[in-house]
């Protein structure tokens, strides 16, 4: 099945421009039927597999930013290719977490889709970034406007997708997580009180009889999302339910973007810490219903936003 594309709705675009939060479901986790690094920045899935042993390409879509993928040899161009199977995935945003693109002075970081594994049929570039110019250090990158002609679009049933890198010198890029998202746009900011920067550190505390305290830190600056809404439109319920489905019924990590217009790169990769995720819409009126969201930032802590 070929991919299809449609512009985001005007409402979605307007709400994002008004800094209403976005719930970004990571639709690629566990969906890659095939994945590899290929040589050059125009590689495809028929090329020789250039992936470094022990750093498989699927690591970039496993939900764990700590486990990186990388090619086996340095070059000026690389291609990271994916086949997401016949069902494909729906994407409208992309982010990159735990990379070395700035350090390697990668000047072109492109996201491309096609309808064949040679990336020859209906090949388009839907994101084109210059990390060397955009970043000061290897911090997270995001692109909420996947497009070819200026308007943000949603691409459905995408089967073949690739990330290409270009640099002046021969380098070995590495990537911890390729966050391919299907967004759900919230209509409102969370109800107050809401803490948009709630942080937590944790570990053990050893206290001696003489009250000498040594704290053994397991993690620091983990973002805690505790949000609730009172919503009143069926479309919102349907949208959130769609998000729930795309996260594997709450089991997979997802992306929380609080200010998608002002600071889109200040997004958090979060996951539900509850062993039994729930989606609840308790009603509170003829049309109103509550929606509560709780999630903790995905570690380890060197990949917390607050520590970047």
């Amino acid at each position: 099945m070929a991919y299809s594309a449609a512009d985001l709705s005007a409402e979605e675009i307007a709400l994002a421009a008004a800094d209403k939060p976005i719930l970004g479901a990571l639709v690629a986790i566990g969906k890659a039927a095939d994945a590899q690094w290929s040589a050059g920045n125009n590689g495809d899935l028929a090329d020789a597999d250039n992936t470094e042993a022990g750093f498989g390409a699927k690591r970039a879509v496993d939900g764990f930013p700590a486990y990186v993928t990388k090619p086996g040899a340095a070059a000026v161009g690389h291609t990271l290719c994916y086949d997401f199977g016949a069902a494909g995935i729906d994407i409208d945003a992309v982010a990159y977490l735990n990379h070395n693109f700035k350090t390697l002075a990668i000047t072109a970081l492109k996201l491309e889709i096609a309808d064949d594994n040679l990336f020859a049929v209906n090949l388009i570039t839907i994101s084109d970034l210059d990390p060397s110019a955009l970043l000061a250090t290897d911090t997270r990158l995001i692109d909420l406007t996947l497009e070819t002609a200026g308007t943000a679009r949603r691409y459905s049933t995408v089967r073949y997708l690739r990330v290409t890198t270009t640099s002046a010198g021969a380098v070995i890029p590495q990537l911890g997580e390729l966050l391919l998202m299907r967004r759900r746009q919230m209509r409102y900011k969370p109800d107050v009180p809401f803490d948009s920067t709630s942080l937590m550190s944790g570990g053990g505390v050893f206290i001696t009889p003489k009250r000498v305290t040594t704290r053994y830190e397991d993690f620091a600056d983990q973002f805690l999302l505790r949000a609730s809404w009172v919503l009143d439109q069926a479309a919102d319920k349907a949208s959130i339910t769609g998000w729930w489905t795309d996260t594997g019924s709450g089991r997979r990590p997802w992306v929380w973007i609080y200010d998608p217009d002002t600071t889109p790169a200040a997004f958090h990769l979060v996951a539900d810490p509850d062993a039994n995720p729930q989606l609840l819409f308790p009603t509170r009126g003829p049309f109103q219903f509550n929606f509560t969201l709780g999630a903790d930032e995905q570690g380890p802590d060197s990949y917390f936003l607050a520590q970047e």
Partner: protein
Amino acid sequence: MTLTPDAAWTDAFSRADVQPRLLVSITDGVTTWRATDGPCDFLATPAAIGALISAAPVSVTSDPWTRRIQTGSMWARFHDAWLREIFVVNRLRGNAVTITLGAREIAEVSFLPYFKGVWEVTKPKSDGTITVELLDAFDLLKKTKIVGYWLNKHPLEIIEDIFVKANIPAGPAGLYNAVSLDESQAEYTDISHWCVSRGGWESDYFTDFAIREPTPAFDLVGELVKMLNGSLVTNEDGKLEFKLFDPTATAVAHWDDLENLEQEELDANVVNRVNVNFRRGSTGYSRMWQEEDTDSQTAYAYPGEEKRILDRSLDVDWMDSTQHQLTAQLLAGGLAMTVHTDKLHGWTGMSLAYPPGGQPAHKKISVARDTYFMLFDANSPDSFEVVKATAAVISATHSAAKNVWDPVTEAIVTESDYPVRATFTIVRAQLGTGAVQHDVPTQVVDITIPVAMAESRVTRFGDGIAIVSGETSFIEYDKQVGDTVTLEEASYLGFGIDGLDAGDGKWEIIHKEPDLYAKPPRVAWKLAFASVQAQAPDRGWLGRTTEVVGFKNQAEDSIANEDVARPYVLDGLGVSDGGGLTVNLSPGNAGNGSIRMKQDGTIIETVAANRDHYWFQNPKNGALMREDVAPAAAAPTAPVGTFFRGKAEAGGAAITSVDVEGQPLTAVDGVRLDESTVTAHEFNTDMELAGAGNIVWNGGFHTWRDV
């Protein structure tokens, strides 16, 4: 091994907030996979951050009495998402695994060893983790069974040889610290001359203590460590290392803020009599060295009780052939004695590195090291004496090669040039005994090691050994089992100690368990009081233990069942001229009671010219002894337990005559021995050797009784 944290490690763990990190490396020799349990800022090469979820604490415990080591099971838990891809395409079992401990902000070079071993068992779980069981060198030792024999070697040498047999790798990347097993090191200067054996003759009827059946290497090493009174631990660098218990060692730390300090029950482990059993025969251990703390026995007596004896025994199977004979009378004032052994195995100061002078200096008997012999006179059992040897000259060796069955190669091995006779310079009347005259036959027993074992225990355990447990933060991680520390603790209670301070004595670390994943993270310790008493304990000696027995001679051929049994020739065993200055000793059979000795082939002896040569043989073990005297001189006395085998007179270049007249050809000598009772003091060695089964072993015997 000493864990030596550098300044960066110490700074990181001295802070009020510590970010500890474990770094694990798995390698198959070609590829290395690395993972940490959290971000590390300065790794030499990349690692999967957070792929290591947790690792077990490395637990080591040393029993202060038996010196037996216990280690906890070791495992590491990994994130399935990281390990799965690696495991599917790589056979990880058996790969080397190293875990180091550091902190987030320090360089990898500052990390300290935490564990070293091998990957053994993989357990995937449904919670997204994979637990891997890891084995350290101790585990490898426990899983490996070996066979072997060792003759006249230092216990540390034998430990190392056991490691080799158990395929514990050596060298810088290996799993044991060879320097700690080198008896020439300064810390072993008092015991560098120790010598033990485990092996036997090829004779069918000698009690052979070679390890013929596959035996856990761990058990054998444990026996030797017990003898040495030290600790064999797997230190964090993964290497097996021996450490001698030294109550005088400088304390490595002073702990005055132990968390959760708990004292174990006091007085629960008082031992005021220590028995060291050795020289195992067919009916059990035939020799015991005993030391007592009589003050403790009196102090702990119940009302109306004269004394309360709390005894404990140590069994040693490495000194089975430590009994020998004086070759000549030793007067009460004599300062030299010549001792002859009919065994392949030697004794203290008699390593197999012969000829005389061939031993390195540290293996020789000297005035600087304790070497004790017990002399007991079979005809005067009241007059036993302990002497201290200060020098030795090996004066003879068995000239004929001896065949030993090697359980490793399952073949006969020829051993030669082992000491058979030595003259010792001695100091008389040691260890509370008096100097007396000793006539032939007098048995000489090497008690060097039993004395050391008993004394070290009774001086430490006489008032019980206090044990405390407690916890510290990881800043104390570098301390090791076997180290000594001092404590300060106001609540401590003990005999003579109301509240601990540094001056009250040192404590030996006998347990260490660092646990980074406990809540809170901590290092758990157990300490045993290490100071020993200054007073010399009372000593006692118990020989072949019979209290009051009735016995009859039970000679095989006796009609009346009243004659004394003796060793004798059944058939063959002749002596003939072998040409030149050689003598042929023919095959044949001998017996002694129910024991049979069989010699299959001809033994060819080369003899000295112009001497008369006499052969004696012990049917219990086939040991062949030769003595030569001046032509026409009086025949030498047969060593105890042997029979006269034959004689050859040698001229300048050829044998002039051979003779077997005098060979005993009957099982009894016609001398009646009346049925009677005998006390231990009247026990006669001849009676013992008159025939197997004559004397009844009394396993319940504890002490001499005055009669």
